[in-house]
């Protein structure tokens, strides 16, 4: 526990200390509100600002969680991972420490946008919604931290990771309904979106923030808070299940990859000439 906590605090400090990146990361979502805000002003959506903000908050959590996982690559190449790996702490707690710290940083960022959101038109009626929303952020943060760490352990250096994560992050966010409604997508992309776990994270988080989880699934379809794919209805509960399954698979895969990955080989790429 002490290790997980210490690694979590460490990554949170790294996030807070990098002022430029911090400000940019916080401003960027609002830029999207201006760019895409008008798209959501249509007859189906009751509260376009809340709707838009919910999507942006959860997309930010997702992106941030992936980005923090890239710290792992940074640590590996900077040598710090050698200190971590030669110490007696278990590989499992190092991996868990990574997930938790990614989720913590991602959630922190989500909460900040959430708070700012209140000043520009986000409306909730029940205080419980805040608790549900934060829990959902932590949950989504951990799920995609597993995904991010998995990519991180597969990539050999920070450049590869950035290229790969950009190639994955962009389509996953844009085909999730967070910025562009599904209704505006061509059929082919719609289908791609149905296979995108982010779609369900966005739908679930919106349903929570708009306080509509209690409504029957069929009533949520118009607002894209639920989907009818073929004959199957996917409401908030089903979305939760999909995310849970996706998360467990990648948490397991990344933990395994992390335990087995040959860090000495990774270090050798850098130190070849001087380390013999």
């Amino acid at each position, binding site marked *: 526990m002490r290790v997980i906590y*210490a690694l979590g605090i460490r990554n949170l400090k790294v996030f807070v200390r990098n002022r430029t990146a911090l400000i940019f990361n916080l401003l960027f979502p609002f830029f999207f509100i201006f760019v895409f805000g008008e798209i959501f002003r249509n007859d189906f959506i009751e509260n376009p600002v809340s709707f838009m903000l919910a999507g942006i908050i959860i997309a930010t959590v997702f992106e941030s969680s992936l980005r923090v996982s890239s710290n792992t690559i940074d640590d590996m190449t900077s*040598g710090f991972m*050698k200190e971590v790996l030669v*110490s007696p702490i278990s590989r499992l707690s190092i991996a868990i420490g990574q997930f938790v710290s990614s989720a913590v940083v991602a959630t922190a960022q989500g909460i900040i946008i959430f708070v700012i959101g209140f000043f520009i038109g986000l409306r909730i009626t029940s205080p419980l919604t805040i608790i549900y929303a934060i829990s959902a952020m932590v949950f989504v943060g951990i799920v995609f931290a597993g995904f991010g760490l998995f990519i991180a352990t597969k990539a050999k250096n920070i450049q590869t990771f950035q290229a790969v994560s950009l190639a994955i992050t962009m389509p996953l966010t844009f085909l999730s309904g967070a910025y562009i409604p599904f209704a505006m997508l061509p059929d082919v992309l719609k289908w791609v979106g149905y296979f995108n776990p982010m779609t369900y994270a966005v739908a679930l988080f919106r349903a929570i923030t708009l306080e509509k989880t209690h409504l029957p699934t069929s009533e949520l379809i118009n607002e894209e808070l639920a989907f009818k794919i073929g004959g199957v209805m996917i409401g908030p509960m089903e979305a939760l299940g999909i995310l849970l399954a996706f998360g467990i698979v990648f948490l397991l895969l990344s933990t395994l990859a992390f335990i087995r990955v040959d860090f000495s080989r990774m270090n050798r790429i850098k130190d070849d000439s001087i380390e013999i």
Partner: protein
Amino acid sequence: MSVAKHIIEVRNFTKKYGNFTAVKNISFTVDEGSIFAFLGPNGAGKSTTINTLCTIFDKTDGELIIDGKDVSSQKASVRSAIGVVFQDSTLDKKMTIEENLKMHCVFYKVPRNEVEERIRFVLTLVDLLDVRRKTVAALSGGMKRRVEIARGLIHYPKVLFLDEPTTGLDPQTRARVWEYVIKLQREKNITIFLTTHYMDEAEICSKVAVIDHGKIIAHDTPFNLKKHHTKDRAYVTTSNPLLLEKLLDERNIKHTLKEKYHRIDVENKADLLHILSECKGDISDIEIRKGTLNDVFLEITGREIREGSAS
């Protein structure tokens, strides 16, 4: 003296990187509580051996045991028995000095109530207490090295590996660090395993293994190494070189003329004294130098240990 336990046992260890063999079939043991040094030039295989003993690299062949545990199959137990100061930087550059040391305490389960005190102590040792809130990335190379060493000395492992620990340190810090390392070894019975190319550091070790091109070419106490592989030499300046040379040649003593002085191999001190007394009126200077570990290396390999050294 009681027979000490072998805390490290290495048998027929080989490490290859692709086609390149960095370490060739070496075997050695290290007594518990001793100071053991790997002495050799860069690229000799010192760091490869340390990295393998520390569970960071996988061996190609052979058997490596630390405190009765196999380095390849019982990595977790080996890791909890050792401490390492690597040659390359392994600091968390985004964090401050103090945060680096605190993290180390977490990794090595230093009791919470001792953390503050031990950090204060090691930082005083390397003279960094005043700058402990600085981020590592902002420090100079020498300061980073000192942080690295301080961090390695925080916890008390059974075996402490020091890979070129004092390279880049100023003389005072080097002396202080050494004083403390020897204290740790004596008081906590910590075995010290170091690599170095500083002769004076190797001199104070219990045993030295001289390593070159991945092979151990000599392995003994510094005293024995010098006794077997070096000779004392006398450097004599005289105004009558012919007489000195004649007397030396009569007794078959090897000598070489170097600029102004004669370098004489001392096999028998009484003989030399006799000769010198015969030409004492001509002699303006005498210096007798003991053999060093560098001479040992020179004698065995024909090269200076620092030759072609990059650092």
